[in-house]
């Protein structure tokens, strides 16, 4: 696998949401609008990139038996950094995502990439993998958020193109499952065709 593939596999072929089905808790929880999906995706991308980078750098100094606690401490630290920075500089977005930011720690996508990829591969591959997976996650969340916002509120990125209410179910929890199911089906169709 060359470096380019390490970066691009996160978008379609191994997309964390549509193919690996990792990190579904924030995926379903925050994607009531496209901007929320984008914000959550970028926060996760930062954590993923930084944790992959640090894990691949220290992988040779950590005894095997304590690697998971070490990874979790590293991930939790970056999540807390994101939380504090967002609270200080992007309070409006923090209010929307508040509860879900600390939950990035338990997003299996982040620990999964640290354990399955970064702790076994070299520096460049791990950085590219973290960035690619993060952007793939962002792409999936933004897409899902956009679909739910269009159908549920008749708006996109906060711009109302239909006055009045949309199909409310898409803003609520069941709509998240329905929309995600259809998006996965469409992605599978494309993945099979190619």
């Amino acid at each position: 696998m060359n470096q380019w593939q390490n970066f691009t596999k996160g978008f379609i072929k191994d997309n964390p949401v549509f193919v690996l089905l990792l990190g579904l808790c924030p995926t379903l929880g925050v994607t009531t609008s496209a901007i929320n999906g984008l914000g959550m995706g970028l926060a996760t991308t930062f954590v993923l990139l930084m944790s992959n980078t640090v894990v691949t750098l220290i992988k040779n100094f950590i005894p095997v038996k304590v690697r998971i606690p070490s990874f979790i401490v590293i991930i939790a630290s970056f999540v807390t950094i994101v939380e504090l920075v967002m609270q200080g500089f992007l309070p409006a977005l923090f209010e929307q995502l508040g509860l879900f930011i600390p939950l990035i720690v338990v997003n299996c996508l982040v620990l999964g990439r640290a354990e399955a990829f970064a702790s076994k591969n070299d520096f460049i591959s791990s950085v590219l993998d973290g960035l690619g997976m993060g952007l793939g996650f962002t792409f999936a969340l933004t897409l899902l958020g956009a679909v739910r916002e269009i159908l549920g509120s008749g708006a996109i990125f906060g711009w109302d193109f239909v006055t009045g209410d949309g199909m409310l179910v898409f803003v609520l929890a069941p709509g998240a499952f329905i929309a995600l199911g259809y998006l996965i089906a469409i992605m599978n169709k494309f993945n099979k065709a190619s």
Partner: protein
Amino acid sequence: MSKQKKPESTFPNMVLALFLVTMIAGLALGGVYVVTKEPIAAAKKAKLENALGKVLPEFDTIKNKKVPAYNGKDSLVFYTAYKSGSKVGTAVKTYTEKGYSGRFEIMVGFTPDNRIENTAVLNHAETPGLGDKIDKSKSDWSKQFNGKNPEQFQLKVKKDGGDVDAITAATISSRAFCDATKRAYETYEKEGGVK
């Protein structure tokens, strides 16, 4: 790379590795905390001032105090506003536990003649598209409280024999909003109103 074998999982190695990882993480977090402390406080203050500006007439100084609620377990915060020395109103930060998704907080501003100047929702988790209409950014529903004196204007939804038009399909959220407003008013009355 072959020379750099991973350290054996012996007790001292594990203790040392975990100690170093947590120490570096702790130091990094301490640093970020110090750097972001002021922006976070500033953001919180800006949010509060924004809410106060919405629910009160023009003012130049604010005094705040905590007041135990007439019912409920948490105390409310009273922000008394002055303009060139005279009282122009009091904002009450109040809460309800009866929201459809639990607790939410609102700010209610009273004018010196005990009328509601305006209200503002501080945070809520009500259903998007239904209950979130309590928020002024979503609908004009809460404007019906403006200018009303709760002495004559019963802070209950019409279904419960009050004077408030409930939001269609969101009676629980409307009731909760009334509950929070009532808590603010009753406590404010008990404190003697603006006298």
